[in-house]
């Protein structure tokens, strides 16, 4: 009897702590499948963020470092410079990457640092309980924008992929979404391509993954997928923003 | 060579620190204990710069000179600042081209040199520091001329040795001034 489904070898056999319906689990699995397919699990060092994915170091079978909040691209830079022939990736949320770690993100990209960044954008701070993120949408209700994000007072969301694609350093930037099976399949292709860019020493690659947070959005998992599709994708259009050889 | 506490002071860009380094280097080669301490900060060009060179038989304690034996002064602000700190019986060497006043102290030896004028006659005002070093050697007998000549050769990159010859020429001119 042939197996139709199994845990990727690059994923640890441990229960994850993520909320029901959260898309972190999907994103983790995609990365692990890509590591399996590229055969790089033993060559890879991952860097976990601060945020909901803080325990990512317990979930991937590859070597892992846990970084301070926002500093993952700097930590990854340190690692990569020491072991340039290994594969180094960071896994970061929107608060980590686009607020407290903006400088580290922008400059790692500008340097063309040969690392891969997986950027989970779910438009909210999950771990601390649903505060406004740099990527929260205009009008979005959160614990710290209880009357809806008022752009006059709280400013506008940051479109990281568009912003970074203006730089010469990055080799590949794509925004994908986890709201449907076709989009999830596309997301995996993008992640694989990002890792391949690094293997080919093309420089900085980033995949922005639009994701859900049912718990802090106050929606069911199914409603969350719909909210992502109806609200986030229009503001954060999917597609390849940069692809150079 | 004598043990000396030397302050060299002037504008940034006059080669104050390099002149000090030559003395420190020559003393090191001669087996003395030495330290060289620059003022530092936004004074690459134009601001005041000085350096403290301690030459001693004993290991150097404080590298900061409060009362120098010798003051080599290459501008008016540095003479104003350091004149009174020189020890009784000490020496002040003054670039007469740039400093429009006399030393007021009567308990120190003073040597006035037209350092910048001599340097310009040699083709480059930036050689004034070397002229001052030459005048200082003559006045104090702190080093013999060859020790500093050697220091100049050793402290200028091999690719720029033509400059060493010019520096030595300027120093000798100061020595004979």
């Amino acid at each position: 009897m042939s197996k139709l489904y199994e845990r990727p070898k690059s994923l640890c056999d441990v229960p994850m702590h993520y909320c029901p319906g959260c898309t972190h689990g999907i994103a983790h699995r995609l990365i692990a499948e890509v590591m399996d397919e590229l055969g790089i699990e033993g060559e890879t060092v991952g860097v976990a963020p601060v945020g909901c994915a803080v325990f990512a170091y317990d979930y991937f079978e590859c070597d892992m470092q846990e970084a301070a909040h926002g500093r993952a691209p700097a930590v990854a830079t340190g690692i990569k410079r020491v072991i340039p022939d290994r594969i180094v990736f960071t896994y970061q949320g929107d608060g980590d990457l686009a607020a407290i770690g903006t400088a580290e993100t922008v400059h790692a990209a500008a340097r063309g640092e040969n690392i891969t960044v997986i950027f989970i954008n779910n438009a909210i701070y999950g771990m601390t309980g649903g505060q406004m993120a740099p990527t929260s949408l205009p009008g979005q209700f959160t614990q710290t924008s209880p009357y809806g994000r008022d752009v006059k007072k709280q400013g506008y969301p940051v479109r990281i992929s568009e912003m970074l694609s203006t730089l010469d350093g990055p080799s590949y930037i794509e925004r994908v979404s986890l709201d449907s099976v076709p989009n999830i399949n596309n997301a995996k292709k993008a992640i694989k391509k990002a890792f391949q860019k690094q293997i080919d020493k093309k420089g900085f690659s980033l995949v922005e993954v639009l994701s859900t947070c049912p718990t802090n959005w106050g929606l069911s998992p199914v409603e969350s997928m719909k909210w992502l599709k109806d609200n986030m994708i229009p503001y954060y259009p999917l597609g390849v923003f940069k692809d150079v050889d | 060579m004598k043990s000396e506490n030397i302050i060299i002071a002037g504008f940034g860009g006059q080669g104050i620190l390099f002149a000090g380094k030559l003395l420190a280097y020559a003393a090191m080669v001669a087996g003395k204990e030495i330290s060289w301490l620059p003022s530092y900060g936004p004074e690459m060009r134009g601001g005041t710069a000085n350096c403290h060179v301690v030459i001693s038989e004993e290991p150097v304690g404080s590298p900061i000179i409060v009362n120098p034996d010798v003051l080599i002064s290459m501008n008016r602000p540095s003479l104003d600042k350091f004149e009174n700190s020189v020890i009784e019986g000490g020496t002040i060497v003054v670039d007469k081209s740039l400093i429009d006043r006399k030393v007021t102290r009567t308990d120190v030896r003073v040597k006035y040199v037209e350092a910048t004028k001599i340097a310009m006659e040699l083709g480059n005002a930036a050689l004034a520091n070397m002229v001052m070093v030459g005048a200082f050697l003559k006045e104090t007998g702190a080093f013999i001329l060859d020790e500093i000549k050697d220091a100049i050769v050793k402290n200028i990159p091999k690719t720029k040795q033509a400059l060493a010859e010019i520096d030595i020429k300027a120093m000798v001119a100061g020595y004979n001034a």
Partner: protein
Amino acid sequence: MSEKVLMKGNEAIAEAAILAGCRYFFGYPITPQTEIAAYMAKKMPKIGGTFLQAESEVSAINMVYGAAGAGARVMTSSSSPGMSLKGEGISYIAGADLPCVIVNIVRGGPGLGGIQPAQSDYFQATKGGGHGDYHLLVLAPNSVQEMVSLTIDAFDLADKYRIPVMLLGDGTLGQMMEPVEFSNDNISHVYEKPWATVGTQKKRKHNIINTLYMSPEELEYTIIERQKKYNSIVQNEIRCETSYLEDAEYVLSAYGTSSRIVETAVHQLRKEGYKAGIIRPITLWPFPSHIYKKAAEHAKAFLSVEMSMGQMVEDIMLAVNGKAPVHFFGRTGGVIPTPAEIVSKVKDIAGGNASE
């Protein structure tokens, strides 16, 4: 014996680090330590090393974290305001038990302060700077030659104990030139680092460099385990230099630049018949408390001389523990005390004219 060269303290640190096998330097420009970065920028590419100018001190120290976690001998350097920014990363490096060398060429503070030499970061260096229960091993050289030897030792100590080691200098030491020798005597050891994250090669369980423990008991356990390491450092690594201590009635104490000035002052005092002696801590943490304790058996008074408003004096008071009066003299903000001021202070103490 190799030839003596005339070198700035900052450059000597950089050259010594390279001799010790450091091939990774991450930094950010700040006066008065920039020569370290400039030297590294020039040398590293020629020897297959990495010099990277980071976008901030915050980023630089986190690059150090990553590189140390990948098993490298790595260094960063800065001066006071930059060291405050590094505080976050230093706490994480301490918490993850990563070895690295951090150089602080201190200038006056607080805030932007000034650019002239100071010793006002003693508390930051020895008592924390970042958050949490941790220590840095803090080495305080007082000459350019010692900047060389202690830099080399710093890398060995860091690897031996898996601890961040700080080299605490100041603007004077960083900027001054003195003759130095780079001998082959203190060639560094090579330490195995099986904990490093360099890829599992599918031959072992994954290594994790981490500072997060959600269970209080687990976190407490790691801290207590680290404390054992600290205890062993206190047992084995204290360094201190004393002079004229045997018959000293007045024990002056200073580290770094101010110890040089104290040396000149004590020579003067001895000439004038005062029985003055010196304790110069070379490790500021661990602090050589036992030396002070012993000196307190015969000393009439202690005097801490610092380029601050009085920081190390607190550790001296703890060590002396009320056995003798502990006085303080300091200048700060970039002002350097003079030997004459120190001599005068000792005379005041001897004459009963100084309050503690």
